[in-house]
């Protein structure tokens, strides 16, 4: 019983991180109709920014979180102008596939640049907060887990307000849902694209800083998160915001339960099997719509 509760807590916390991480993929897919394979690299860069400010310069962890978010948002904009904008609207290419490859290439370039700048060695980073909170029996949560859940909830709440209330947020949803109509409302699509990429960077950077104390900061720190993010996105249905949140927690829970009861080596194989099953049974995900219905 206590093991189960512990696993569920851990699963929910990871689910929260996956939710903000994958939300970046979801927003970009909704708006630009391509998978942004640099989403993991945004988190990696965010981790390095936080490491430089905290471990290196001695700033408090919260400053590291903010620096990571801002740096990754900048990297998101850079990624847009290098690897997406030159492809938008070109008639001689398949945009979705070409942008997928070009963002993957940019992600590899970011990792390589980080190796050149800081070397390949892992960097340790302190958690946002130390210590543990005892709940009952042997069940306890670290304050870091509480902080992670809190930050993730603030991010999701803020995102919901932004998307549903603000002019910029509504225009992101409008471009995602009805491109021509959004243009007829006077929305400049070009600006919405880079704002969306900045937002994806921001979310990826925050996820990266939250994950950093658990996995170290390293040039390949974005690889695992993007795999998890893709799993969540496929289970959710690409582009579905609500689905992304549910699927992130489902994936987090499955991962934690498998790691606890079967062994942590099994969590990735189980998740990948899940992708295969979803691809066969419900390729549009839990909350997506089949293509013909989308029209």
């Amino acid at each position, binding site marked *: 019983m206590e093991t189960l509760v512990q696993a569920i807590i851990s699963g929910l916390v990871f689910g929260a991180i996956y939710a903000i991480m994958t939300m970046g993929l979801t927003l970009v897919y909704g708006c630009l109709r391509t998978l942004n394979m640099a989403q993991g690299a945004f988190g990696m860069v965010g981790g390095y920014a936080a490491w430089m400010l905290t471990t290196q310069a001695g700033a408090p962890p919260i400053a590291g979180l903010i620096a990571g978010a801002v740096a990754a948002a900048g990297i998101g904009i850079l990624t847009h102008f290098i690897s997406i904008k030159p492809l938008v609207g070109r008639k001689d290419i398949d945009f979705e596939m070409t942008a997928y490859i070009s963002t993957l290439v940019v992600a590899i370039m970011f990792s390589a640049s980080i190796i050149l700048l800081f070397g390949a060695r892992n960097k340790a980073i302190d958690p946002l907060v130390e210590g543990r909170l005892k709940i009952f029996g042997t069940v306890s949560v670290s304050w870091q887990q509480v902080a992670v859940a809190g930050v993730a909830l603030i991010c999701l709440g803020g995102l919901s307000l932004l998307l*549903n209330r603000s*002019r910029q947020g*509504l*225009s992101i*949803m*409008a471009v995602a*849902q*009805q491109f*021509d*109509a*959004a*243009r*007829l*409302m*006077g*929305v*400049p699509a070009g600006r919405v694209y880079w704002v969306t990429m900045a937002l994806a960077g921001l979310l990826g950077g925050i996820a990266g800083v939250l994950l950093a104390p658990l996995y170290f900061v390293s040039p390949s720190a974005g690889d695992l998160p993007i795999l998890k993010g893709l799993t969540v996105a496929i289970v959710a249905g690409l582009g579905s915001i609500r689905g992304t949140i549910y699927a992130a927690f489902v994936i987090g829970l499955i991962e934690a339960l498998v790691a606890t009861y079967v062994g942590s080596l099994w969590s990735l194989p189980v998740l990948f099997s899940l992708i295969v099953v979803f691809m066969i049974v419900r390729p549009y995900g839990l909350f997506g719509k089949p293509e013909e219905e989308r029209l």
Partner: protein
Amino acid sequence: MLDVTGLSAGYGAAKVLHDVSLTVDEGKFVVLTGPNGHGKTTLLRVLSGLLPADEGDMLFCDERLNGRSTAAIVARGLVHIPQGDLLFVDLTVEQNLFMGAYLSAAWRNRRERIRRVYELFPRLEERRTQQARTLSGGERRMLGIGRGLMSNAKLLMVDEPALGLAPVLVQEVYATLERISRSEATVLLVEETLANARGIADYVYLMDTGRIVHEGTMAEFGADVLHSTYLGNRGS
């Protein structure tokens, strides 16, 4: 207000519009009619900057529209309400309306503007927190028109507002458009038949195979003109 001269446009090699000239004066209710698939919607798409013009000039309030972005054209007050509504189906009715006031000049007055749209279409206020995808056909049309009215429109281009609506709703929509043309904005209406706009239109253009083949006031538009166009081109 709107002056189009010698306009040609199309999709790549497929030319749709040939040497189109058309004028809309302020405060008038102008109808562009003609059989479907003959370029009426394409003309609206070119005017609102969704499709580039190949030749010719488009002037709106003495400013040239050629080469301008859709955002810049909408900002000048030329607003296109597209055929089939093109709503943001996962947004609520209210969010759809707010999107209509996206440009900053209109956004500042969005609460005031939404009140006016709700006065015009009380049904939309009842449905304001519902997703647009849950609306009936008539409500969707009201939302499409209401969304267009949220902007600072000087000239509203409305494409086939009667399409797919029950006759009683068609009357309601046209009565609203007539009211709008008198008090809010000039209207350029596109529709396949003149049946609905007969009592409202000040001036009519007839388009056939991408050309304006006839123009005049409603009185000058005899049944013979329409017959020759429709019967001559249909059945092929």
